[in-house]
């Protein structure tokens, strides 16, 4: 967080829709996002909030019925010539993307059980990307594969390389997927819910692995998840997404210890915690996310927001800066708004978290 932070990804006004039988679904409605070198940025939100769609734009992964309505994504990387290049990922052709994918941007997917080609050995799948972007062959290539498996903590790499995916456990397969993602030393790694499909015990280990690798290799990570506990563990920056928009963004400390958007309040309150007293009932956000088929007037969260103001139903809130690295899009921060405090329960919870977090860090 010093002045020499180097921005490697700058997304501006990203709007993406899906054509469906019932009409156009506006999945992403104007997202801005910045990623700096060596930092982890989390995007948190419920399913359908557009977090995954946003991240997939960076990889150029679009379904057939997907329409990018507007937006730029400037990506800065150091090419093989040693010079720095900046490209707009949104306007690259498929061919140009092929050169970047795997090489400079890599991705870890949600379900390791279906992410690997069932008919190919681990070695062939691991070597595939390396062959594409480097000149390694033969024993050098094999040595690199072994090295990668060791890097992601797989024992007996020689034997594993000869295996087929179905012979490995889910956690092991996710390690292979991570190894594939890291195989060409990417500048940016996108993790799309990388632990959601795994057993709870394995989740923690995979998470630790990602954190460890991120620190060791100094890569930038976009981490997509619906799990706030995961966010607290991995992220430097947090973007809270709701109904296709980022509603609050800031450092992890900002968002966890000084949340300003009522949706973030709701998310934090509904997070189960060990320290919460037993009598305390788990908070839930009432209602459902809005149907993105319809035009949304005002604040999308208003119908579910117990603190909503009349203006929330009329006009969309702009961003209100809390400090130079923290903002929230809620009318509650407008000087004209009545003074609304976060729920007392959450306040005590945050105090507790501060205490625990302080000890942990």
């Amino acid at each position: 967080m010093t002045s020499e932070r180097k921005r490697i990804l700058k997304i501006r006004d990203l709007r993406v829709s899906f054509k469906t039988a019932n009409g156009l679904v506006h999945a992403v409605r104007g997202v801005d996002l910045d990623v700096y070198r060596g930092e982890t940025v989390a995007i948190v939100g419920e399913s359908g909030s557009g977090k995954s769609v946003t991240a997939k734009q960076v990889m150029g992964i679009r379904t057939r019925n997907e329409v990018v309505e507007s937006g730029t994504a400037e990506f800065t990387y150091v090419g093989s010539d040693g010079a720095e290049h900046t490209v707009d990922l949104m306007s690259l052709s498929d061919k140009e993307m092929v050169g970047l994918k795997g090489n400079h941007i890599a991705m870890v997917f949600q379900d390791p059980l279906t992410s690997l080609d069932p008919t190919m050995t681990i070695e062939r799948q691991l070597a595939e990307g390396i062959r594409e972007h480097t000149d390694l062959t033969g024993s050098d290539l094999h040595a690199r594969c072994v090295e990668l498996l060791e890097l992601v903590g797989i024992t007996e790499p020689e034997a594993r390389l000869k295996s087929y995916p179905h012979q490995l456990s889910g956690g092991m397969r996710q390690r292979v997927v991570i190894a594939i993602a890291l195989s060409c030393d990417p500048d940016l790694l996108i993790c799309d819910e990388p632990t959601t499909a795994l057993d709870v015990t394995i989740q923690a280990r995979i998470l630790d692995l990602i954190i460890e690798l991120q620190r060791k290799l100094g890569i930038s990570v976009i981490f997509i998840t619906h799990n706030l506990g995961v966010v607290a563990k991995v992220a430097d920056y947090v973007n809270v997404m709701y109904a296709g928009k980022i509603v609050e963004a800031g450092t992890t400390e900002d968002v966890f210890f000084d949340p300003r958007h009522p949706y973030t309040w709701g998310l934090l309150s509904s997070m189960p915690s060990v320290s919460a007293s037993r009598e305390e009932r788990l908070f839930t956000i009432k209602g459902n996310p809005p149907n993105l088929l319809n035009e949304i007037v005002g604040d999308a969260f208003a119908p579910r927001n117990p603190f909503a103001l009349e203006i929330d139903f009329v006009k969309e809130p702009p961003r209100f800066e809390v400090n130079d690295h923290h903002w929230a899009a809620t009318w509650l921060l407008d000087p004209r708004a009545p003074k609304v405090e976060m729920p007392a329960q959450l306040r005590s919870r945050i105090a507790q978290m501060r205490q625990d977090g302080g000890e942990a860090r």
Partner: protein
Amino acid sequence: MTTSNASPFVDEDALFRPADFMAHADTDEREYANYSYIRETVNRFLSNKGALVSLVVISLIVLVAIIAPLVSPYSYSDVNSSITNLPPRIPGLEQLGICDGTQNGVDLYAEAGIPNEYHFFGTDGLGRDVWTRVWEGTRISLVIALIAVVVGVLIGIVYGLVSGYFGGKVDIVMQRFTEVLSSIPQLVITTLLIVVLQPGLANIVIVLFITGWIDMSRIVRAQVLKCKTQEFTLAARTLGVSSRDIIFKEILPNTMPQVVVTFMFSIPNAIFLEAFLAFIGLGIPAPTASLGTMINDGYNAAMIYPYQVLAPVMVLAILMLGFNLFGDGLRDALDPERS
């Protein structure tokens, strides 16, 4: 900074007060009003033109098959040796020079002594009216297929439910049985059974459903196995709901889309099998007509009197195409992930 498109005449400052939720209560409902499974399914089906056209065509054929033999002046079985092999003659069209009952310029109707009669599709080698026979045959073919498929589907559902739900040894034995049964070519089973039982309406129906239930039982079993592990079934079981209730209230409704789709695809299958049996000489005995027996009768003379075989062949082809397209549409609509 994003700005909204709210009207500039609204006094914004006055709106900074806690919202009156009663006034906005409809927001939620409005947003979900046009979002339901049934509606989406219907929308998907309606957007499939092939399926829609098939539905109309099938309905038309069924209607004509019911009405035409009733209002026709001829009976499907009346043999008349003086009016054999007449070409088609249709009022209205005959003025245009087609279907006017002439062959090589000779008015065969006049020669046969019936200058004022109209056989829309002509007559066959025994002087029977092909139009009446075709629709009579269509009716019989449809009835055979429908009965066979309904019975087969019911057997298949029960078999699949029992096998899938009880699992264990019951399942193993039942699965081995179907495995062996499906390893015997259907052709051989059907042929042998008909040879033993002798061709006849009831026997053909029996033969059709004896081999027709296996696919359905497999699909139902697979669905049951899938449902069994899902939370709602586990929940019901934990709450002490009886096996019967779980099967009928939880599992069966969930297998319905698949069952309906398989049912739709089984009908053209059964129609085809009936026609096939007739074609190898194991059809319903004369004088009863079915599409298969008519094709079998007409095919020998197909090069000389093509219209005699053309009529049943076209009806059969359109029916098969229609049911297949309709089934496709139904599957896509009910089960969009699988298509």
